[in-house]
């Protein structure tokens, strides 16, 4: 298992980063090229000002009609994404990796805070699962794909938490953490998780069309 762990944190990690980066660049490039070929109106209407106006507005909790109308979802979505990003960059374990791989001594979250944020992410995943099971509007449109990506995102956090709490085999849990996180990275450009790379563009376009053409807010 140790060999596998070394492989997962070595070559496999670099391969995942490479697939994630190359895949994302390729997906974004091909969408931009496709828009240029088929939808010139997208280019004609795109505006930096209205794009950022819309992006910032939707990055404000309860700043839009959609967020106001769905308060639980607003708290869940913001908590999930914020904690996820903080942990990704500043989890104590990750800080060691930054240092080990790149010689970057970055600030890291205190242990207790990292644990708390991990629990928050796990709770948010449970909340999303609850919605998929119990909220009729969500259940009606949920597919296997949605369950798969939710499970995929859930795995790195639950395994990290169990490893930290030393529940189960710590090495196995850590390995699971690394492998599932790599799977998430690889999945981002090619699955529903691609909203991570596409939503800034879809948001920017909608902001531009509403701001510049429709002369009204898109929130």
């Amino acid at each position: 298992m140790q060999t596998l762990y070394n492989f997962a944190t070595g070559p496999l990690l670099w391969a995942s980063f490479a697939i994630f980066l190359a895949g994302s660049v390729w997906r974004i490039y091909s969408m931009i090229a496709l828009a240029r070929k088929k939808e010139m109106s997208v280019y004609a209407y795109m505006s930096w000002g209205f794009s950022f106006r819309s992006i910032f507005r939707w990055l404000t909790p309860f700043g839009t009609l959609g967020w106001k109308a769905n308060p639980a979802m607003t708290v869940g979505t913001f908590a999930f994404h914020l904690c996820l990003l903080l942990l990704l960059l500043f989890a104590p374990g990750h800080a060691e990796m930054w240092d080990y791989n790149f010689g970057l001594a970055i600030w890291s979250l205190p242990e207790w805070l990292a644990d708390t944020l991990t629990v928050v992410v796990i709770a948010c995943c449970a909340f999303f699962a609850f919605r998929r099971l119990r909220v009729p509007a969500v259940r009606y449109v949920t597919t296997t794909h949605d369950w798969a990506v939710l499970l995929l995102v859930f795995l790195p956090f639950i395994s990290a938490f169990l490893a930290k709490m030393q529940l189960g085999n710590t090495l196995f849990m850590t390995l699971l953490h690394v492998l599932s996180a790599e799977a998430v990275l690889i999945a981002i450009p090619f699955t529903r998780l691609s909203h991570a790379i596409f939503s800034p563009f879809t948001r920017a376009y909608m902001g531009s069309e509403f701001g510049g053409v429709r002369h009204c807010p898109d929130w």
Partner: protein
Amino acid sequence: MGIADRRIEDGNLMQAVAKLTPEKIKAAYELVTKGEAGARLSTYYQSCMRCGMCAQACHFSISHPDDPSYTPVGKMDQTMWKLIRQKGEVTPDEVYGMAQIAYTECNMCKRCVHYCPVGIDTGFITSLVRRFCYRLGVVPTYILDTAHSHSAVMNQMWVKQDEWIDSLIWQEDEARGEFPNLRVPLEKEGAEILYSVIAPEPKFRTQLIYQAAAIMHEAGLDWTMPALPGWDNSDMCMFVGDSEMMGRLKRCHYEMAQRLKVKRIVMGECGHAFRSVYDTGNRWLGFKDWPVPVVHSVEFFWELLTTGKIKIPKKFDKPVTIHDPCNITRGYGLMDKLREVVHMLCDKVVEMSPNREHTICCCAGGGIINCGPPFKSVRVAGNKAKADQLAATGVEYLVAPCHNCHGGLEDIIGHYKLGMHTKFLGDLIYQLMEKTRAE
């Protein structure tokens, strides 16, 4: 739950579906999703998180709270998302359901945009589903007939050339009883204003032409109306998915104005026609800007009232509420001007909630009312949300500057026994203005 449980019989839908083969369906799917649509469809499909936040946006889902198949994402899931998931391999029966959803259960009012964090344009997706159905001929009978009328005579209502001119002269005649020197100038080259209407005006709302002529006359404007095709600014081809004809209609409209060398086009109180010249037809033609400026009635009336060309000696004294038509508010941002005009005409305005760009749709637009009697009950039941909103104002008069909105609102007012009356801005202005040139 789903569209299969609420199938409504429609002559053309049944006939067209009977002729479908898997090959035809697949070919239409390929043409629309791969040939015509591009990055927007692809990113929307992949980025839609199926989170259901849009459920609270749509008047259909608000009116059917226990049925998720009416939510915007539910409707996309039963139509375009399903087509993509199954790579166009769907049955003729399923195409029937898709047509029924796209043509009769989504007004493409885009209210759901305000609820989607990712920025997905459900109205756009519906228009692609309609395009797919149109390529297969699977379009509800009544609206298809209006699109055929556009193709045959370049107007929506099978109005013949002589009938159009005759209707204008008839209204001129009528109006001269009240304003002796009034003219409806036809084909006047170089006029400041070209007034264009939708074909239902000469067909069955002819008094609106009388009122417009009276307002132009009182304001002393240099205006004209066209005698030749292109006079109808409406566009049912846009709503059935006949993009080619949509392009021809808009080109014809603009070229008619260019032929007459007018300074600008003023259009009647219509929402969808504005969408067609400003949002969809122009995109198809590749016009970023319009070849001849187009002014919507709301802006035009605002101009007449603020410059004092039309004076209102006494305002309407009963309380009114304002309905914001989606195509000119969410589509063009006329919320403030509309309010300013109504406040210049009426003493007391009771606002609906939500309003302005968050307005709840009339449920007639997007071509739904044009799908005719078989689907009337769908849009009346699907807009209990608006009926509740209207009832909550407690007022008797409702101002709505859009023909389709009038049709839809009158139907829910009748069905839910709200006892309200709808008014165009033109109705109020004609009724209230100072008539210095009348006899």
